[in-house]
């Protein structure tokens, strides 16, 4: 046992003996056992989960604000802040009643008008919310604990929208804060959840601090992802931003940090060997890698060129580049939906299966009329996932005989350039890389990237009335079997048309110290139920 741990354990053991079963939180020596040091996947650059929709902001917000409903580990919405809901027989009026005794962090009670205002702000920025307000009649509070949402057309997936974990989540804030323009940041962080955000100690880019909210009343059920009782078992959580994975790995081994959200896969074998560190899969819903082609301009405006890419690409190469040699971390993905979920299908995915046929791909590419024009490929160098994928793509295109114009830029510039609809020679683009959380790809509902409605679609602007029709059919499906049948058709249509090129399905690990318990697998790190012993 190393010196440091020995000293610490001796100190804590003697204190335990003196005090009893658990060290009292007020004791200074016990304080370190009540503070959890967590290294997040990225920097917490802002703290408005509606305005800034990055995953890391959502992860932090999930512990500071509560939601009306929350997904459990079966991706079913369960009641959280809501005591009961009622849907009128014509499906147009949703009435929600809040739980009694809910309070904000400033001591004010949570009222229906706060909920209504929060939902109004959320719906403007959320794709499902936008669908709801498109058919909205009114959203009003009836009394202190009841509010109703009246629609012009039924929206059966309402609870899914309110409880989903995809960003932006429908967090409930005080009305005065929720009145902020959804395109402007809030500046006060008064939460409704189990922990408070300590704004005074926030150093963006370095540290964020959360303390336990003693006034929070968790639900009585056991917790399951975003549903159930959210009980916080530590006093304080410190998020420490570490830009260097080697440093984070050393700090975890040393005990300077307790929980690392995303260790890079190559370091995991070493972490596994370390006696005080545990490693496991972080999110069973994983991630789907993607590169998107520009459907507006040659060569990828021709479906044959796109299919040639699918024929030639090796998902194994992409996945190994992303997650290394550990084969348990990736699966090939002959489709667009998350493996391990009810709607997963491989229908139409033959083109991505089996040995790669480079010659046939080259022929198909030639047929599409490609004759050596430069293909501008945007690759963000500061995101490891896009960087790795970009390298593999450059190699793939070269082997296909294409002329690659490799634009090594940063993620911010990718964000700006991919929105340009100009031709490639004039500042446009033909390919860029990204990835999606598996949780966002379980169904077409939150899945913007699979839509093919031309101008309104995601970057690349795929335009396929057939794909859209199949997606609409899924939305109208009455039960699970009908949904499954519809999804099969969606998958096939989307693959035939090549809405985008999925590079594979990959998982990532999380790592923590032995003395931390209660960490579960999930689409985001859940801090309730996590305890740290001395």
């Amino acid at each position, binding site marked *: 046992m190393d010196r440091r741990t020995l000293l610490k354990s001796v100190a804590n053991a003697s204190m335990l003996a003196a005090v009893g079963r658990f060290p009292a939180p007020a004791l200074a020596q016990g304080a370190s056992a009540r503070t959890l040091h967590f290294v997040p996947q990225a920097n917490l650059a802002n703290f408005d989960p509606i305005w800034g929709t990055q995953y890391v902001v959502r992860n932090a917000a999930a512990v500071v604000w509560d939601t009306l409903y929350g997904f459990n580990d079966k991706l079913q919405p369960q009641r959280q802040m809501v005591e009961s809901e009622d849907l009128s027989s014509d499906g147009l009026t949703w009435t929600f009643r809040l739980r009694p005794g809910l309070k904000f962090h400033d001591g004010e009670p949570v009222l229906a008008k706060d909920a209504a205002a929060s939902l109004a702000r959320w719906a403007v920025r959320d794709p499902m919310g936008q669908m709801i307000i498109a058919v909205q009649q009114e959203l009003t509070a009836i009394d202190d604990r009841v509010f109703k949402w009246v629609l012009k057309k039924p929206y059966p997936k309402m609870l899914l929208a309110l409880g989903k974990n995809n960003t932006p989540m429908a967090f409930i804030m005080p009305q005065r804060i929720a009145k902020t323009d959804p395109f402007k940041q809030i500046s006060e962080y008064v939460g409704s959840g189990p922990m408070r955000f300590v704004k005074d100690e926030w150093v963006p880019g370095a540290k964020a601090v959360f303390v336990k909210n003693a006034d929070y009343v968790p639900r009585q059920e056991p917790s399951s992802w975003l549903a159930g009782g959210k009980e916080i078992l530590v006093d304080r959580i410190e998020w420490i931003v570490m830009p*260097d*994975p*080697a440093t984070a*790995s*050393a700090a975890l081994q040393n005990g300077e940090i307790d929980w690392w959200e995303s260790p*890079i896969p*190559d*370091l995991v*074998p*070493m972490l596994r060997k370390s006696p005080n560190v545990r490693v496991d899969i972080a999110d069973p819903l994983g991630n789907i890698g993607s590169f998107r082609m520009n459907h507006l301009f040659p060569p990828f405006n021709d479906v044959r060129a796109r299919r040639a890419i699918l024929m030639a690409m090796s998902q*194994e*190469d992409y996945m*190994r*580049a992303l997650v*290394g*040699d550990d084969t348990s971390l990736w699966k090939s993905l002959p489709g667009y939906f998350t493996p391990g979920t009810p709607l997963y299908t491989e229908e139409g995915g033959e083109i991505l299966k089996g040995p790669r046929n480079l010659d046939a791909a080259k022929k198909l590419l030639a047929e599409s009329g490609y004759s050596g024009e430069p293909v501008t490929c945007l*690759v963000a*160098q*500061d995101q490891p996932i896009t*960087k*790795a994928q*970009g*390298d*593999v793509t*450059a*190699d793939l295109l070269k082997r296909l005989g294409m002329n690659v114009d*490799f*634009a*090594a*830029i*940063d993620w911010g*510039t990718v964000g700006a350039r991919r929105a340009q609809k100009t031709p490639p020679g004039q500042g446009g683009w033909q390919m860029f890389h990204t990835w999606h959380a598996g949780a966002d790809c379980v169904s077409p509902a939150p899945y913007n990237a699979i839509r093919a409605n031309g101008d309104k679609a995601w970057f690349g602007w795929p335009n396929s009335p057939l794909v859209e029709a199949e997606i609409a059919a899924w939305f109208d499906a009455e039960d699970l079997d009908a949904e499954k049948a519809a999804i099969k058709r969606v998958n096939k249509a989307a693959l035939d048309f090549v809405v985008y090129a999925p590079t594979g399905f990959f998982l990532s690990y999380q790592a923590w110290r032995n003395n931390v318990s209660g960490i579960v697998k999930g689409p985001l790190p859940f801090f309730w139920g996590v305890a740290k012993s001395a």
Partner: protein
Amino acid sequence: MSAPKLIVPPHIAVAHAMPDLLPAGKPRRGMIGFLRRHPTVAVGSALLILMLLMAVFAPYLATIDPTALALARRARAPSRDFWFGTDMLGRDIYSRVIYGARVSLTVGFSVATLASVVGLAIGLVSGFVRAADAVLQRVMDGLMSIPPILLAVALMALTRGSVGSVIVAITIPEIPRVSRLVRSVVLSLREQPYVDAAVVAGTRTRAIIQRHILPNTLAPMTVQATYICASAMIVEAILSFIGAGTPPTIPSWGNIMAEGRALWQVKPFIVFFPAAFLSVTVLAVNLLGDGLRDALDPRLAKGL
């Protein structure tokens, strides 16, 4: 006694004959004699020439295409087939390091040359044209006050990563120092009687520059250029470290190290080999600079 308000370039400040790090051999005449008297120049140039040869003959020295991905054999330790091991995408590190010499040396020499040329021009204008001097000096002061790495990162943000943009991004922060050097030479030489005489005799400015100014700037500028070259190679590595360097399709010592930095605890060879080559090359250039400064009359440098 006038105040030395000019910021004298550190490497030139009060130069004294710096004896070689190595003991000098028997004196002989000509080039061999020169090298024997100044073994530091000899060692420095020898190493540098070695690196240059490696860069030039890279296609023959490399064992495999440095950009060829082979994900099935990623991150393997050095072995008989892959002398320096493979990186995270399965590329051969040995071949990448050999080719990397091209980029690092190109960046080093280009920055040194470009900064010297532009700095010379600005320094001359500054020294001769009073009106321009005030403006140029303020601009140069302003540029110098921005930390060079940050300026380079900001310049890289303007455009995509490529060897050319890296060269420009590293050159711009170096220009003020060169221009200062040249300007101080010009200013001090203008006081010299023989230059005065030339001016009085009606010699055109261009001839004055050619005959009197340039020969006197050549020595200190050359020495300074070698230091700029060494520094540029390190800055290129740092830019890659930050993520604002050359794209990975063009291997450079900097970006090989940057890509492997996360793994250095488990696969140290990815960082070690390019680091070793970079260090040796920078060392060689530094030695060359030291030796040159000693060999070229140090009194010239002192006269600034």
